[in-house]
Each structure stands twice: as C-alpha cells, then as structure tokens.
C-alpha cells in the first residue's frame, strides 16, 4: 500500500475496459467446461428420470408379483399391462415355451453380429442355468431383474445385471492383458532400454493410441475372433474374451503412458542410492523403482479400467452382444455401452426403453466420474506425500 502511494499518477496501472472484457470473456469460456460436466450429468439424468420414478412407484407391486410368480406359468397377460411387472422372474424358470421365446428374442432381435452366435436356443439354456437366487435382496424394481430383453413382444424386461456383468467380464479380460504388458513395457522403456529403443517404442505406442476404436473393433471382429476360435475352438466366435483382448489394444497405450510418467517421476536419488548399495540393475528397477511408482501405476490402472468399461465400438463389434448373466469368459456378452450404442437408434424418444438406456448412461457416467475423481485426488495426493516423505 505504501509503495503504491509513491507511484505518480501517470504511471499507475489504469483500468482498461478492453482488457477487463477480454479477461471476463476468457474466464466465462473456461468455466464453461466446468459447467459442461454438470450439464452432461443433468441432461443424461434428466432423460433417465422416468426410470427412477417408475422404480419407486412399482416397488410394492413388484415384490407382490415375484412372490406369486411361482404359480404364474403364463407370463403374458400380466406382463403386458405395466412396465413395473418383472417378467424376468417367470422367464428364468425357463420351463414354459413363452420364456424360451423371449430369451431367444433377446439374442435374435438385438443381434448385431452377422455370424450369429449359434442360435438363440443355446442362450436360452444359459439363462435357465442362472437361477433367480442371483437377485440380491435390494432389488425393488424391474431394473434389477436378471434378464435384458427390452424388445420382447410379451413383456419387455430391463434387468441391467447381465449388462453390468458383461461390462465387468470384458473389462476384466482387457485389464488382465493390458496391465502386465503396459506396466512392464513402460518399465522396460524407462529403465532397461537403450535410448534408440526408447525413441522407437514411444512413437509405436502413440500409433497404437491413435488407431480409431472402430478399426480395432473391425480387426477384432475379422482377424482376432477367427484366430482365437481356431486356437481354442470356442463355441461362440464372438465372445467376452475376443472383446476383452480387442479392448486391451486401447487400454495398453493408456496404462503404458501413465505408468511411464509415474516411473519417470520416481526421484533419481532412489535409483542411485540403490545402485550404490550394491543392488543390481534389475533389482533396483523391480524392487525400488517399481514400488515407488505404485500410486501412479495404480492411477494408470484406474484410468485404463474406466476406459475399458466405457468403450463402445470394440465391444459392440466383437463381443456377440447377447445379454447373458454368467461368469464364463468364452460366452458372448452384451455390455452397458454396447446396449446404448446398438439400441438407441431404434427406440422411440420418451419411451421407457429410451429412459432405461439413458439410465445405463448414468451408470457409465457415474462410474467413470468416480474413477477419475479417485485417480485425481486420492492417488495424486498419496504420491506427493510419498515422494516428499521419502
């Protein structure tokens, strides 16, 4: 304040409207990106809102229907009447022809795969095997039934468990491949590799990251699926395994790049200290550098996981798209994202099916948001503390 008084009038910083306006506009635009996040959340939730309403509304009705479903052989008359009725309960007993019909319809009607996973009847058998006791106690709505057959003519059912299961299976497979390859390749690039190899490897990984996902999906559909079937002789040509490996093509660059950053960020004095104490190069790299980079690598895994969970085109093309609730990795799966991608173009706007698809979007959004928040705040903070603490 004192210094300010000494500045003569003419040299003082003047208020300039143009500068002020520019600053305000820039701030406004920048904050838009913040607002966009809220808008995305708001509008995806808004379109999904009818589902949430139905859910609370039909809660009581549903519990009634599921207790009486034991006797209800013919599901048709009850099911058509309201959305809240869950046909899934009757369906999964699978003895009556109606149920076979519906589950066959699931696979047939929503099938995007030209090769066709061999027949709908097979998948009906699969659904029979998964009994209803899978349903956790807090399912109070159609949304949490065990069958996804939104276009069934008898009674559409929107159980999202098979879809979540599908997403989890595919994500699991992709991380199973991508995590070791990505992390070890990053370790090699930053520590073992000579400089020319490093300069050659990084662009290669960047190329992999730059391949459009639809190309990877196409590749998985055409080449990878045939190759895996020839090797393992699986029943279904397109399945969770193929989709997962296809996905790992997109996850590897993410895990590689972020792990690379994390390993690079490990202070040099740790390496030098370890080497000075007589540890060999590989002992240093595996037992000192790698553990020190663990928080960053964990963040890399989280972001890779988020990417795999939400990726659409690869799973849409290479997983067979049949909604089944079983843990077998060589069965076709239908994921959350693929369901949105495949069905959104055909639904009527404002329909229940439309809202349910938006609800799937909410699930995807919430999942990726949570992962990102964890990676952002928790991991970063831990990493900082760790390196300062050492």
């Amino acid at each position, binding site marked *: 304040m004192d210094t300010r008084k000494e500045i003569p009038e003419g040299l003082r910083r003047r208020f300039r409207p143009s500068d002020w306006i520019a600053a305000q506009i820039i701030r406004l*635009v920048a904050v838009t990106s913040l607002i966009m996040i809220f808008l995305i959340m708001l509008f995806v939730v808004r379109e999904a809102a009818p589902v949430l309403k139905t859910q609370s509304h039909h809660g009581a009705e549903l519990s009634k229907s599921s207790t009486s479903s034991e006797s209800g052989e013919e599901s048709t008359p009850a099911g058509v009447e309201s959305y809240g009725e869950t046909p899934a309960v009757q369906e999964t007993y699978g003895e009556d022809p109606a149920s076979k019909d519906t589950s066959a319809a699931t696979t047939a009607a929503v099938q995007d795969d030209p090769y066709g996973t061999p027949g709908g009847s097979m998948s009906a058998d699969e659904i029979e095997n998964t009994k209803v006791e899978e349903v956790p106690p807090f399912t109070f709505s159609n949304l949490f039934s065990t069958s996804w057959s939104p276009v069934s003519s008898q009674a559409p059912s929107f159980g999202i468990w098979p879809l979540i299961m599908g997403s989890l299976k595919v994500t699991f497979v992709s991380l199973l491949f991508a995590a070791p390859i990505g992390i*070890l390749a990053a370790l090699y690039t930053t520590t073992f590799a000579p400089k020319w190899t490093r300069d050659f490897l990084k662009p290669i990984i960047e190329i992999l990251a730059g391949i459009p*996902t639809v190309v990877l999906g196409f590749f998985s559909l055409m080449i990878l699926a045939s190759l895996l079937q020839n090797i393992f002789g699986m029943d279904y040509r397109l399945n969770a395994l193929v989709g997962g490996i296809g996905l790992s093509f997109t996850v590897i660059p993410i895990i590689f790049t972020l792990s690379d950053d994390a390993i690079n960020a490990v202070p040099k004095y740790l390496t030098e200290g370890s080497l000075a104490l007589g540890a060999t190069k590989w002992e240093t790299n595996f037992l000192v550098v790698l553990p020190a980079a663990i928080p960053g690598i964990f963040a890399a895994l989280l972001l890779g996981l988020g990417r795999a969970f939400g990726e659409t085109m690869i799973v*849409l093309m290479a997983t067979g798209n049949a909604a089944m609730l079983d843990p077998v990795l060589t069965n076709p799966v239908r994921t959350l994202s693929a369901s949105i991608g495949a069905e959104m173009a055909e639904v009527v706007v404002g329909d229940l099916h439309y809202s349910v698809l938006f609800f799937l*979007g909410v699930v995807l959004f919430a999942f990726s948001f949570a992962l990102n928040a964890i990676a952002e705040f928790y991991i970063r903070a831990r990493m900082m503390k760790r390196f300062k603490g050492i």
Partner: protein
Amino acid sequence: MNKKVKGMLAMGITAFSALLCVLMVLWILGTVGWYGASSLSWEFLTQAPTEGMTAGGIFPCIVGTAALVLLMSVIGVPVGTITAIYLSEYVDRGSIVAKWVRFSVNTLAGIPSIVFGLFGLGFFIQFGGGGLDSLFYGGKLTWAQPNILWASLTMALLTLPVVIVSVEEALRNVPQELRSASLALGATRWETIWKVVLPNCTTGILTGVILAVSRGAGEVAPILFTGVAYFLPSLPQGLDSQFMHLGYHVYVMATQSADVEGTRGIQYATTFVLLALTFTLNFSAVYLRAQLRKRSIQ
C-alpha cells in the same frame, strides 16, 4: 539360479512386453494395409456407394467425415484455446478455480464417448433442437432430429480436452521473458497474450487442432445417434442434414449390411482410408510437436 540369469530374465520379461506392443501394432497395420490396399482404387475414393451398398465407393463418407471435423474444429478449437489461455495466463496454478477447471477437463477426457452421444441426444437434439423448433418453427420437426450440427457440437465437446492440453503445453513453452518484456513496455495483459504469446504458439494450437481432428475422425460412438446415416443419396446440404462417416461405414458394413461377406473388400478399404487419414493427421501432429520442443529448447 545366479543373479545374472535372474537379471536377464527380469529384463527379458519387460523387453518381451515391449516387443509384444510393437508386434500388435505391426499386426493390426499389416492386416489392414494388406487387405485394404488390394481393393483400393481411385474410383473407390471418388464414387458414391452403388447397388445397395455392395459396390461403388465411399466418397460421401469422406465428405461427411471432413465436414464433421471441420465444423467440430470451428466450434471446439476457439473454446479449447481460450480455456487453455485462462488456465495458463490468468490464474495461478494452485488456485481453486484453476483446480476445478482442470479437474473438469480431466473428467471430460475420462467420460466414455457413448455418454457424449447420450448428452448430444438429450441436450442438443431434445433440449436445444426441441426448443428451437417450438420457438421458431411452430413445433414442426426441424432441428430436433439428428444432423451434422449436433454431431459436430457433441464431437467438439469430446475433443475439447485434447485441444486444451496441447495448447496449454504450447503456452508453457513460450518463455516468461517475452511476457515480462511486453508487460514492461506497457502492454496490457490481453495485448500481451494477443500480440506476443499467441503468435509464438501457433504451432502448438495447430498441433491441438490436428490431434482433435484425428480423434474426431475416428470416433464413432458419439455420432451413432446424433447425426450419422447409413446411406444418403446426396451429400450433406446444410447444417440440418445428416451425413455419412468413414468409421460408421466400417461398423455398419461389417455388422449390419445386407451382404457382409460380399463386401469384405469395401470394409477393408474403408478401414484403410480411415487409418491412413488418422495417421497422416497424427504424424503431422507428432512432427509439429517435435518442432515446437526443439524451438523451445533453443
């Protein structure tokens, strides 16, 4: 097992992983290149699909993709650049606003692309388009349906983080002395940015644009229900028309067309064109960025 063998083994595992990555890339590129190049021809690039999509070329897809990324850049690049300017020139690195904007940019980058599509449908088409229709067109269905404008807006939002990150990097590379000198000569902050900082990072902005375009050209999920069409008899006429897209063409031809087996050639060739397009873009971005770094070191 002595130490040396163990060391070799440990290094071997990591080297093998790296090699695997390289092989993967070569395998994918090799396959697409091998099958794609054989059915590629000049006619293929300059003709529209004929005979119910089983013959002819992909000209409308190329035009549609180009129009989409052009519109997308026109909308997204200024917004991204301004956000980057805000982050690097106007706020402290540690300030709360900067932290939150950065967090939302990171979150935006992590949101699955299909959710952007949902947002495009819910916000742009239903809310924006529906609002426009009821205000200006008396409820007649004009804008509340998929078209190239909504698809481009969705895509612009999707590629926003890409632009922000690369422009920010470019801004960071502009020496602090330049800013100080300009400010010391009496220029205002805005004048400094407009006349000194921005001219010095055009390469960086260009890199951002190219990366965004490459991402936008390859991404299919967000446009699935915001504007892309399976087949159109004519090229897009205006902002309110639908368009064909290379990536979507690959997807549709490979999974849903009438004659999937018979059009393998078209599928591979389309994939080849798409790959060639994104690679050209990516390589130029890598080249520009290398130039940028070289210059900033000097």
